């Protein structure tokens, strides 16, 4: 996913003279081709994220479209004020590409886990927040990013993620995509983002074997949230289950709850699945942390089946 993302920046830069790449000490060899072919618009800067974001703002004020890449937590936590004031207040077309979204960097510990990035970026006016599910969808996003007028935070996943997106579904920033459609109403609606869409799709297959039907609605764009699509699918569902690789506070599930609550209509119950309100206490792999948080497909299916059965039981009483 990251390679596709960076390669697409390179090709966009060849097509459009406004495109600039800025990295913050990304490691040897990263974007070497662009460094060779477009050295004037390639910047490998030091480990100073506040400066890099401010610098990108200055370039954007004068007509360029900077794509800034470094580790997600350093962009979102460390440079937060520059993102808020230099980018969002000025409504500048800067793209922040965060490596290691969620718990990708599990072995590196809590300093490197981007588990609050949705919350931090989502709260900022004018910010767009995107987490695609796979490399193919990343390519579509990057093409769509070129002329988006506002700043975008793009969360990167681990890489090598299973391809679940489909060309025929198209791609537009801010538009959710139905990845799996339930045959009947009274089903479970999975609202998902990032690579958790892939986990939810696998969970949906397990649930189908148990006779529990579900729709998987993939929100590659966390903000602006596609409220219309959410309401359309939620009104037919018996429950909404949100799945995210993020703290349960302030993230994607919170956004879904807010949107449903604001409708002031009878909406189905919502169960949010995500990371609990604590710093990670284990290392291991991304899947180890996801498993400890109940976010592997079999666990999502199990939790959802219990929820579904409880709803059916409640309806019988």
């Amino acid at each position, binding site marked *: 996913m990251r390679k596709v993302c960076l390669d697409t920046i390179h090709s966009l830069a060849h097509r459009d003279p406004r495109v600039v790449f800025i990295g913050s000490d990304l490691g040897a060899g990263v974007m070497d081709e662009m460094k060779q072919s477009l050295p004037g618009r390639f910047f490998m800067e030091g480990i100073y994220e506040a400066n890099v974001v401010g610098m990108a703002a200055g370039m954007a004020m004068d007509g360029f479209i*900077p794509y800034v890449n470094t580790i997600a937590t350093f962009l979102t936590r460390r440079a937060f*004020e520059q993102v808020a004031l230099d980018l969002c207040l000025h409504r500048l077309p800067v793209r922040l590409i965060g490596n290691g979204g969620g718990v990708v960097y599990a072995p590196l510990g809590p300093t490197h886990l981007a588990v609050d990035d949705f919350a931090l970026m989502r709260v900022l006016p004018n910010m767009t927040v995107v987490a695609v599910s796979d490399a193919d969808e990343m390519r579509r996003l990057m093409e769509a990013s070129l002329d988006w007028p506002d700043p975008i935070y793009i969360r990167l996943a681990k890489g090598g993620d299973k391809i679940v997106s489909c060309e025929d579904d198209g791609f537009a920033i801010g538009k959710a995509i139905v990845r799996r459609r339930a045959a009947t109403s009274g089903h479970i609606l999975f609202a998902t983002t990032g690579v958790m869409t892939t986990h939810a799709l696998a969970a949906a297959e397990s649930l189908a074997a148990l006779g529990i039907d579900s729709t998987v609605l993939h929100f590659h764009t966390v903000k602006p949230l596609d409220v219309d699509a959410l309401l359309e699918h939620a009104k037919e569902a018996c429950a909404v289950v949100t799945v995210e690789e993020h703290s349960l506070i302030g993230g994607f599930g919170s956004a879904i709850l807010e949107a449903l609550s604001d409708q002031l209509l009878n909406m189905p119950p919502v169960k949010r699945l995500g990371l609990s309100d604590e710093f990670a206490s284990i290392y291991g792999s991304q899947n180890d942390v996801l498993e400890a948080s109940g976010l592997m497909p079999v666990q999502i299916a199990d939790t959802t089946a219990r929820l579904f059965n409880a709803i059916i039981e409640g309806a019988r009483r």
Partner: protein
Amino acid sequence: MPLDERAINLRKLVVRGLAGGGRGHLGPALSLIEILRVLYDDVLRHQPDNPRWPERDRCILSKGHGCLALYALLADQGYFPTEALDDFCKRNAMLGGHPEAGKIPGVEASTGSLGHGMPIGLGMALAARMAGRGSKVFVVVGDGEINEGSVWEAALCAGKHALDNYTVLIDYNKIQASGPTADIQDLEPLTDKWRSFGFAVTEVNGHDVVALRRTLTSLPAGKPNVVICHTVKGKGVSFAENNPDWHHKAKIGEKDVFDMLSALDSYHA
């Protein structure tokens, strides 16, 4: 250093803003007047009737709390009518307590939180280089402001890129909100610090219009510049000079305004 009639009149515009809003930063604005006056009068290539002229030089007031000085200069140059100062900080005013780009003609970047102007200016200077434009970028920072880490991040980066279209002007009035910079966070040896970051360093009396003009029109080439402008906080209003109590004032009444204007007139005399 005596102040000429224009220096007094520009300061009276600052007082007009304070009177309009009933509040504001006086000391940090009055130390800045000559720095901005020389920039806008003699150094910047700019067109007040076409503020977004692409070929213009950029000036960012990074110490955004000194905005009344910037507003005075922009009004004086014709970017907007001086009457706007009468609405300073009022509900639907164009001019707020910190400058905002997009709202105020001539303001390049919204500032207020300190330490933002230098990285933004750096990006503008690199943008000019990429676009092959001759635009220069001037960033005005406060002395207290350079406590911020992002200032030194940008200084490292400007040195790396040898940005000779990038000039930082330090309003070195030697007093921050809580007292003397020497007590709160001593900056000395200041010239050595900037030189070691790859800047050409010039020191100048920041109220001497002739010296400022000479300095800013003959900056050394080949590397980024910093001009350390030695100034007096509250310059021109005797009771506010070097007085941290006048860093920011709320509840400014008619008598305060009268006293400030009287002090300016007697300074002139």
